[in-house]
């Protein structure tokens, strides 16, 4: 197991380098001359040339990459022209909103998607199986932004049960004292019940939309895994040994199914991060996805690449965490 752990952790390093190279290249080929922007509209050609030299834009690409990298280590992700602040600051300020939405959606997806997939496989061709297949096939084809708009139309406009998509708290509501940055958790911990209620009310619809969009592929994969497990030799041997159905299906089979499902969570997280951007846009949720999109709208393309870098790095570490947990849980890896 130690070998597996070490190998897996070491693998992160070249991957992170790769991620930074990609975002560097993307930043590099951005249209426009950053020196021009920094020098200002009244700059003379000499000023611009001077600025270029100072920013190192006349250096070979490799050197510029080095500067980029050292900047990253110092936490320099550029500046946002829209907010006037360092991008890193903006991102950090907005991460809790995205985190809250992502975690809520993950909860929904796991709590509904996994049982649905399992039962669909166990009662194959039953009505739940047909539902799961419908969800799986249909959900995968639905564009998330459209699902969000549809949900808004039905629950906000038509039924009036959902709040207007104006952010994380209802209008006029004061936020609870900031501990984690997650409004629901903070409100719960400080017992600000009204804030908790409002935060939940705002969170429900976007979390359901995002969660549902991710649930579709998850249910498909869980169902496929469970079906495979149910067909395996050791399950057949368990039947032959007279073990009761409950033990075989919801004991042995389920345990064996859940282990590969752990690796699925990494994939699901990737879908979540991608879907986040769109859902935040639809519901005006003040997270990092919305930040990146808004920045791009105002021709401020720097933040987008920093956003891509941020997501890339997070994704790498999430996958690492998933792999490490998997290595621990599966006895085939834990014990040589």
């Amino acid at each position, binding site marked *: 197991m130690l070998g597996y752990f070490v190998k897996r952790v070491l693998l992160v390093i070249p991957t992170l380098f*790769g991620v930074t190279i990609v975002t560097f290249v993307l930043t590099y080929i951005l*249209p426009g001359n950053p020196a021009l922007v920094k020098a200002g509209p009244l700059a003379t050609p000499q000023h611009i040339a001077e600025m270029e030299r100072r920013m190192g834009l006349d250096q070979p690409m490799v050197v510029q990459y080095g500067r980029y990298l050292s900047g990253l280590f110092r936490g320099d992700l550029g500046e946002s022209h829209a907010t006037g602040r360092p991008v890193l600051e903006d991102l950090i300020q907005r991460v809790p909103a995205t985190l809250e939405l992502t975690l809520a959606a993950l909860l929904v997806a796991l709590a509904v998607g996994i049982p649905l997939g399992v039962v669909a496989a166990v009662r194959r061709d039953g009505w739940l199986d047909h539902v799961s297949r419908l969800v799986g096939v249909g959900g995968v*084809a639905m*564009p998330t932004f459209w699902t969000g*708009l549809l949900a808004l139309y039905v629950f906000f406009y038509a039924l009036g049960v959902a709040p207007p998509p104006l952010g994380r708290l209802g209008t006029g509501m004061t936020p609870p004292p900031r501990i984690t940055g997650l409004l629901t958790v903070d409100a719960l911990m400080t017992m600000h019940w009204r804030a908790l209620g409002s935060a939940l009310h705002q969170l429900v619809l976007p979390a359901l939309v995002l969660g549902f969009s991710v649930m579709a592929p998850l249910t498909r994969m869980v169902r496929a895994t469970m079906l495979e497990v149910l067909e395996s030799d050791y399950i057949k041997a368990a039947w032959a040994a007279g073990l009761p159905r409950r033990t075989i299906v919801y004991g042995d089979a389920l345990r064996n199914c859940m282990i590969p499902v752990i690796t699925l969570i990494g994939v699901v997280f990737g879908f979540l991060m991608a879907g986040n951007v769109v859902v935040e846009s639809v519901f005006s949720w003040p997270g990092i996805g919305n930040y990146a999109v808004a920045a791009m709208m105002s021709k401020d393309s720097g933040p987008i*690449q920093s956003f891509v870098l941020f*997501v890339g790095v997070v*994704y790498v570490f999430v996958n690492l965490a998933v792999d490490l947990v998997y290595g621990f849980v599966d006895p085939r890896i834990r014990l040589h």
Partner: protein
Amino acid sequence: MDSSTLEYASTDAAPVRRSAAALLWRRLSRNVMSLVAFGVIGAVALAAVGAPVIMPYDPDAPDADHALEAPSLRHWLGTDLYGRDQLTRIVYAGRVDLLVALAATAIALSLGALLGAVSGYRGGWLDQLLMRVIDTIQAFPSFILAMGIAAALGNSVTNIVIAIAITHVPIYGRLIRGEMLRIREMEYAEAARTVGNRQRRIIFHHLLPNCFPPVIVQATLAMGFAILTVAALSYIGLGIRPPTSEWGAMTAEGAGYIVSGEWWIFLFPGVAIMATVLSFNLVGDALRDVLDPRMKGV
């Protein structure tokens, strides 16, 4: 008495391919959904190609007298703020979406196949390098990477195609490389007899027919993803921009009208996306059942 011969399928390539087509038809016709899906794709493709001829309205011509009309007999899917017929616009937008998806898939397939073939054939450091490149592409969620590329390159149709194509290269790269490695193993047994170039020719001669089934399946499924990606990119403003109509952009236009109750503007472009992607997925699944049963259930 003659000894009876076995009733097993012959191992020639030709008979298998013929019966694969027949099997595909049998599988499709047995499952109504697949048939409908096939039909939808056909209809969409036909409409896209024949749009100028079929559609009665000009997608771009404003008609202020009939702005924001709900679906009616005159305008089956209603009109937008400028009085433009939505149905016509959706069909025209379909051309863009399909074209982008097709182009992106074709480019990704070619590039990925090349990379995968070279990587698998040569092995060694080249293989390692190319695989690292593919790993790096896959280190990002694909939509996020597409966002970055689209933002860096700009909003033209070409750039969106490139952005999507790049994120799809790993799919085909890994697939072809896997097949190449498998073929290489098999061929080494016979390679003792062959020399130099003939070996290469044999490998490529065997590679292409073997790759066809899984590649076709993946490409069909990837078409769906490509459409979803270009629509989502356009929705957030990073993709196709007006005046070119595109399903995602049209949905974005309709977003603002939810609060005032004009539901048809956002709804129908989304339905178009969903129906098309669903159809590609169903056909892809049916193809997979027929062509590559060992991938079943995934």
